[in-house]
């Protein structure tokens, strides 16, 4: 008798807790009323809980942009913090709708894991952080160093490639959890901490005394970080992709959170198309025609997101660099809305 009750209770719990994600991801999202977004448990500037335990960061803003595009509500998003080990399983199982978790776009991932990358939110590359007191000038002086790395990442493979290609020895100290990697470096277990240089900058701000640490100039890999979705649902892929393009286009066209209402009256046909004043580009994706307007109204354009979370004025302090628009000498380039 007791058994039966427990079984029923469990079954009920399971039915409640297990959301169904049909191939029609958008329909499912509209039905449940929010986007489920997989993020890192804590990389400042990208996604991390802030002082009030709200998620914030540029990758979080991207997820909020999806919420804004679909529901006109940037808060219609829920976040699932994931370890690097679980992230792909979480996406392919439908536990999350979109993975926006400092994930490098690589061929094997794009082709072998049943996922599609929607684009590049942030062009990154792997770098090294060392203690100033060690007096290291270059990554090529790192022979014999103990290096702290997060396990199961491209970082781990890149480091192996780099040291082997340059005939150097090193001690890879590998942890499953990002927090533990940083902690071990900070505690002095390693001479070097290596990961994407953006994350290095972010983590540096979290160290006890950031000025005691320097990030070396060498970048040893290409790490285009971008959101990804499950394969096999092109509508959802389009939404994910064009949400990213919309914020890039907005920056290019000079549409900001502050002036977006003004811009509704702009004469520029490109702006009119972006904001849904002219034509209905949302319809093909199952969205309203002011989908992009809603994004910009709620969160601003790419530049605003960047400056808010990782830009020079933040603790992380990353210059735009290659992430500047193509018009400003960078490589961020969005196809036109037309």
């Amino acid at each position: 008798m007791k058994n039966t009750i427990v079984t029923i209770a469990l079954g009920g719990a399971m039915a409640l807790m297990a959301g169904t994600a049909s191939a029609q991801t958008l329909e499912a999202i509209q039905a449940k009323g929010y986007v489920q977004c997989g993020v890192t448990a804590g990389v400042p500037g990208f996604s991390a809980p802030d002082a009030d335990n709200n998620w914030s960061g540029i990758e979080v803003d991207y997820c909020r942009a999806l919420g804004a595009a679909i529901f006109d509500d940037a808060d219609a998003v829920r976040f699932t913090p994931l370890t690097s080990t679980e992230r792909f399983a979480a996406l392919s199982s439908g536990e999350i709708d979109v993975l926006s978790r400092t994930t490098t776009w690589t061929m094997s991932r794009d082709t072998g894991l049943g996922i599609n990358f929607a684009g590049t939110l942030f062009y990154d590359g792997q770098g090294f952080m060392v203690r100033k007191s060690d007096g290291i000038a270059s990554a090529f002086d790192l022979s014999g160093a103990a290096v702290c790395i997060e396990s199961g990442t491209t970082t781990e493979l890149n480091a192996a490639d780099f040291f082997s290609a340059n005939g150097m020895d090193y001690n890879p100290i590998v942890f499953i959890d990002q927090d533990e990697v940083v902690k071990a470096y900070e505690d002095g277990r390693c001479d070097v901490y290596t990961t994407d240089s953006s994350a290095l900058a972010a983590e540096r701000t979290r160290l006890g005394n950031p000025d005691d640490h320097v990030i070396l100039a060498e970048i040893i890999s290409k790490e285009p970080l971008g959101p990804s979705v499950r394969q096999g649902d092109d509508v959802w892929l389009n939404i994910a992709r064009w949400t990213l393009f919309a914020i890039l286009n907005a920056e290019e066209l000079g549409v900001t959170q502050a002036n977006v209402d003004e811009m509704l009256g702009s004469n520029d046909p490109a702006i009119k198309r972006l904001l849904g004043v002219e034509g209905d580009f949302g319809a093909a994706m199952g969205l309203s025609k002011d989908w992009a307007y809603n994004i910009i109204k709620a969160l601003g354009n790419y530049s605003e997101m960047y400056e808010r979370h990782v830009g020079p004025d933040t603790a992380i302090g990353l210059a735009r660099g290659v992430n500047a628009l193509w018009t400003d000498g960078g490589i961020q380039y969005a196809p036109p809305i037309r």
Partner: protein
Amino acid sequence: MADIEARQKSPPKTSFWNDPKIRGLFYQFVVMGALAAFAIFIALNTAANLARQGKTTGFEFFFSTAGFDIFFTLIPYSRASFYWEAFLVGLLNTLLVSAIGIVIATFLGFFLGIARLSPNWIVARIATVYVEIIRNIPLLLQLFFWYFAVLKTLPGVRQSLEFAGGTILNQRGLYLARPLPDDNFTFVIWAFLIAIVAWLVVKAWAKRRLESTGKRFPVAWTFLVLVVFLPAITWLTTGANVAFEYPELSGFNFVGGIELPPEFVALLLGLSLYTAAFIGETVRAGILAVDHGQTEAAQSLGFRDGDRLRLVVIPQAMRVIVPPLTSQYLNLTKNSSLAAAIGYPELVSVFLGTTLNQTGRAIEVVFITMLVYLTLSLVTSVFMNWYNARVALVER
């Protein structure tokens, strides 16, 4: 009348449904069917999920290049090695830390178990407090403590603590001098081996002598004389020499000597201290399980305390101690998998962590890992059954 006779001759047929055999078969059939259905359900789901993710299955990944490095290996390994070599590295690291941990935990555990039964109040109390604290705190937490909290308080490489004999302790681990014996040293080793053999011969002879003449021979002293003095004399006469390679600061770290990384030391420490508390309880229970009457009987026969323990109490206590002790050993081996959290590259960390992530072969990797632990457990239980059969007390 005829009816009754007929009934007496052939018992009334039980109805089909009430035949316990048929019922049994029916139940088993239902269970088997349900299980098969469940297995098929899972297999189909898995196949569908894999197909949707465009994943293939199979073990051929074992023979592709791993591409990552491991810093603590017992066999040659580099990023160009294959995944099966990475697997082997992890497995050997698991076995290494388990083997050493078992030895330390056994000694400490027996010490604790005996100390808890000590008539000395303060000794018994210290042992009790130790056991009650250690076994009521999760092992993972203890590992974090030994690794992160203690590591933080250790000095950096350049401020290393230096101890006698070239032992160095810093945040990068514990460095010991590596002995480099010269050629003549082989004589000393031979002398040592000969001494051991000689001691075994003396021991056997002493036993025979005790049995035939009733005279006892100081076997323990003989051991000391043979095993210490024989090699020592050989050492002096042959002029054998052992040089030591001391760890020296070079670049970032100390180079040379024997290097024990903090991950290894913390894991070993955590596992041994934790398991020792449980072994202590096992030993205590084993000793208490020997009826006090046995001690009294031995005393009344005039046995001295040493003989009483050796001949009467310990042989009986060991029967009670060995089976749970073996499962503690198995637990220690299984618990070594927590190393994944503190970065010691053992099986789970290398295989279930890195390899799974890099290859995405969840099913294969989990299957193989479980198979390894299952094998270890089966081997242990085979040993335990053998031991139990060997020492079982004969009862009526």
